[in-house]
């Protein structure tokens, strides 16, 4: 018997390699359920999951919702725009009220880094961080690692290039923590204004040119350029960004011939990734990532559910 030694999933930073492996192994077993005619198992019957999303999301929220439903949990979606948040209720008050309705798991996305940690310390329910500011997005990193392991058979010893806005990307941060823990070599590249100053302290190589990071990579992970950042003068124009950092046929050739291309979505086609690569089934695993996302989130719900025995 085994168990995840945690009440909450807040980040990859505080996970051990064994915990990551347990989640990935469990998720692999869940993949099969999504291929059945009846895509449902009774495991979490009578449990309820609240998806509390303070930021826009289609993919992640839907993925958590489907994951809960395939395990027979009741899933309730609350988005900030349609809740009492617009009436001025604080996160803490919202959480206390939700707690009083006795759900089992709360999935939280919030623009403030640390919001899920605050919630986890206040309520007895399990909290899953579905993205907190520029801090972490653990379920995304887990589904990315699952996809890499599925396609490459391992993570240990691979070179993974992460390209784009490293500074504002919670996906990058969670992946850097996870991939380095699992033994991968991580190289990042992006404009100087999008590169955290002491990024090397996380155990990665930092480059200012996409080519330098991509050389010999087994995995090329492109990040979404957050268009709203343009207003903050972090980059001058989309065209200039695309000229220097868009993944295309030419720079992809620097990677290993069997390299896979990943993107957490939503994609800006022609900005960070050229459409012919995004749609090339020979290298793009972007839709596999989405498929694996449901399985990873089922694994998280499954491993967090249950009694509190020792």
């Amino acid at each position: 018997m085994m168990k995840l030694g945690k009440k909450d999933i807040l980040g990859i930073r505080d996970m051990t390699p064994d915990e990551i492996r347990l989640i990935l192994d469990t998720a692999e077993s869940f993949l099969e359920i999504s291929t059945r005619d009846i895509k449902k198992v009774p495991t979490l019957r009578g449990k309820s999951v609240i998806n509390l999303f303070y930021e826009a999301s289609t993919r992640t929220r839907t993925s958590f919702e489907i994951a809960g439903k395939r395990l027979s949990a009741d899933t309730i979606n609350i988005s900030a725009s349609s809740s009492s948040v617009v009436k001025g209720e604080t996160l803490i008050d919202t959480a206390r009220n939700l707690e009083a309705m006795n759900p089992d798991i709360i999935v939280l996305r919030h623009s403030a880094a640390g919001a899920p940690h605050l919630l986890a310390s206040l309520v007895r329910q399990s909290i899953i961080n579905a993205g907190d500011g520029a801090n972490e997005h653990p379920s995304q990193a887990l589904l990315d690692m699952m996809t890499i392991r599925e396609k490459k058979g391992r993570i240990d010893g691979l070179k993974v290039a992460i390209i784009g806005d490293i500074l504002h990307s919670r996906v990058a941060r969670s992946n850097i923590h996870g991939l380095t823990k699992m033994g991968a070599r991580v190289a990042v590249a992006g404009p100087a204004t999008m590169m955290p100053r002491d990024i090397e302290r996380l155990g990665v190589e930092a480059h200012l040119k996409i080519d330098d990071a991509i050389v010999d990579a087994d995995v090329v992970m492109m990040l979404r350029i957050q268009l709203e950042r343009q207003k903050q003068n972090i980059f001058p124009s989309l065209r200039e960004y695309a000229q220097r950092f868009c993944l295309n046929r030419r720079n992809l050739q620097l990677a290993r011939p069997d390299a896979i291309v990943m993107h957490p979505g939503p994609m800006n086609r022609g900005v960070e990734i050229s459409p012919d690569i995004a749609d090339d089934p020979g290298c793009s695993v972007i839709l596999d990532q989405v498929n694996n996302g449901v399985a990873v989130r089922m694994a998280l719900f499954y491993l967090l559910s249950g009694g509190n025995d020792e």
Partner: protein
Amino acid sequence: MPENKDHKIVMDREGIERCLTRIAYEILEKNKGMDNLVLVGIRTGGIYLAERLQKKISAIEGKNIPLGILDITLYRDDIARSNKKAPLGKTKIPFDLTDKKVILVDDVLFTGRTIRAAMDALIDFGRPKMIQLAVLIDRGHRELPIRADYVGKNLPSSLWEAVSVHLLEKNGTDEVVIEEET
């Protein structure tokens, strides 16, 4: 773990083989051949027994009988009561179960709860014409109205004893042991 006070081998390698050979013939006799017959082994012990039955039945009939693997963890009735989880294994049923006669295979039949979970799982995969149950050991103490169609050996046991089926494929030896639980 402390040493078990009592450790008794109740079936050896030949015994297991003979039981499985007999069960293979009984399955074919009862179903009048292997038309529409499929085997589904319950993780983990049931898989190896199902594989052996597959070899025997296929050898007798001269054609291959389909084999599936079922992990019943997600259908257990005690899953919400504990945060300890058995490692979740893969389920592989690479054929349609609708209108098939399914022979469910497990190593030990005890409370019947595993079989209840397995039947629920199977029915999610289709509508079998029939489900039959083959077990190597029936140790009694049923908690649900379930019985086996094919039994290797009836082994009346006390609740304080543990009955373990050790198989070559996972334990390196073929034997059924009964030991007092410590």
